[in-house]
């Protein structure tokens, strides 16, 4: 790679900005002598995180599991649904309004109901994550499946390609970048979804830890959990982007 220095700079610059922000935060807390239950300094958050490392890790694992399971389920549900909606006019007329209506219901408002029905385990969290995720994945997938230009479809028709061949050889590869876009949007929603669900009723997870620690004025622990959640969200996002780079190797 000839552009290595430039690439390193591109990677280091955001890190430097974050470091500067944290330093400013640290200095501000010390300068104004803010009490730690109100706003802890980064150094204190770090120290607390070290003390509570096993609890943080265990709860992060729970949230991660809920998020990833819900996200994967949402994608698994969206794929056949998107294909059905994109290719059958009747289902499009019937299903689309229903799905749109479902999307318009605030998921936060549904969380207590889902908990009422499914209890306090991980199941209601996964359901909320699915509800939050599946719409962006579905909409982008439908858009992608319909995005193949007319002349490409005409080309496939001119070689007597079957509907399945048009789907497999043209529409699906053409939809791939759109599908990844939907997944990237959805995965950040997924983390939010599991935290919301944990807020309603939970015995574990980072959302539960945040609720528990703020009620006991353990603000540094709450901050540690929030930072961990952010980190998780960012990592999941980049994981999908990495997969996208491996799968979508062309540009239009």
């Amino acid at each position: 790679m000839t552009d290595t220095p430039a690439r390193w700079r591109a990677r280091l610059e955001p890190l430097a900005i974050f470091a500067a922000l944290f330093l400013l935060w640290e200095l501000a807390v010390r300068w104004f002598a803010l009490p730690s239950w109100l706003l802890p300094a980064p150094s204190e958050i770090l120290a607390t995180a070290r003390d509570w490392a096993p609890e943080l890790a265990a709860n992060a694992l729970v949230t991660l599991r809920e998020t990833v399971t819900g996200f994967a389920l949402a994608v698994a549900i969206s794929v056949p649904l998107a294909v059905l909606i994109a290719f059958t006019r009747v289902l499009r007329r019937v299903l689309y309004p229903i799905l749109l209506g479902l999307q318009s219901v605030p998921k936060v408002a549904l969380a207590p109901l889902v908990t009422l029905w499914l209890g306090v385990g991980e199941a209601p969290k996964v359901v909320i994550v699915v509800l939050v995720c599946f719409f962006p994945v579905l909409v982008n997938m439908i858009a992608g499946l319909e995005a193949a230009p007319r002349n490409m479809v005409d080309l496939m028709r001119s070689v007597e390609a079957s509907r399945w061949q048009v789907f497999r050889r043209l529409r699906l590869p053409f939809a791939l970048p759109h599908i990844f876009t939907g997944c990237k949007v959805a995965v950040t929603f997924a983390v939010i979804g599991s935290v919301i669900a944990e807020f309603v009723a939970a015995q574990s997870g980072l959302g539960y830890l945040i609720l528990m620690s703020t009620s006991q004025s353990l603000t540094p622990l709450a901050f540690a959990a929030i930072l961990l959640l952010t980190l998780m969200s960012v990592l999941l996002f980049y994981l999908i982007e990495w997969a996208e780079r491996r799968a979508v190797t062309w540009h239009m």
Partner: protein
Amino acid sequence: MQTDGASPVLSMAGLGKTYGQGRGAVEALGAIDLEIRRGEFVSVVGPSGCGKSTLLKLAGGLEAPSRGTIAREGRPLDGPTRQTGIIFQEHVLFPWLSILENVTMPAEVAGHPAGPARARALELLAMAGLADFAGHRPAQLSGGMKQRAAFCRALIADPGLLLMDEPFGALDALTREELSLDLSRMWQDLGRTALLITHDIEEAILLGDRVLVMSPRPGRILADIPVPLPRPRSVETAALPEFHALKQQIRSIIFSQRSI
């Protein structure tokens, strides 16, 4: 599906196309009568919006006519057929496939064995001067090279008829001239029947055995002009006095249709 050769490769009788209905209806194509015989290269030239592209879509079975009949090798045409290769204005190569994979795609769709299709594709790519680019992605090729690859793809299934819709329209003038002459040579080597749609009079003459001149919308055929220029044609062909006379003749037919 080889036939006796007596029936024309393509024939149209009273063929017309109207888009939409009622007050919003647009008559794109009037009544077209046309016959293309085996081995012939027919150019269709006309002003933009005269229904040239519609004519090609009907010929390829991509659209159904509103009136009249259309037959391939004497049989009524009821949809697209692999016996007809189409070259569109844009190259329409799939960006996720290599050039070779793009060229073999129609053969794969048809379920032909991969080995011979691959060998034939490489042969065609070599003829088109793309031997070294078989493994490249379309994005790595210039506009002219992409259109050459599209030619190879149209020829892979060995079609009896080649339809071309302004295949050089998206290219710059120099590439255009080079490519059209190359195509002319390839066409002659392969002995293919072809229908070329263009708005470029010189291109129509340079490539065609006959030039059909179309009227503005609704398109009709105003004149059927034979091109008795010798083959192989080259850049020098365009300098011949006969070439110039044909060009003037066609120009005057087209401009006589302008109402001002």
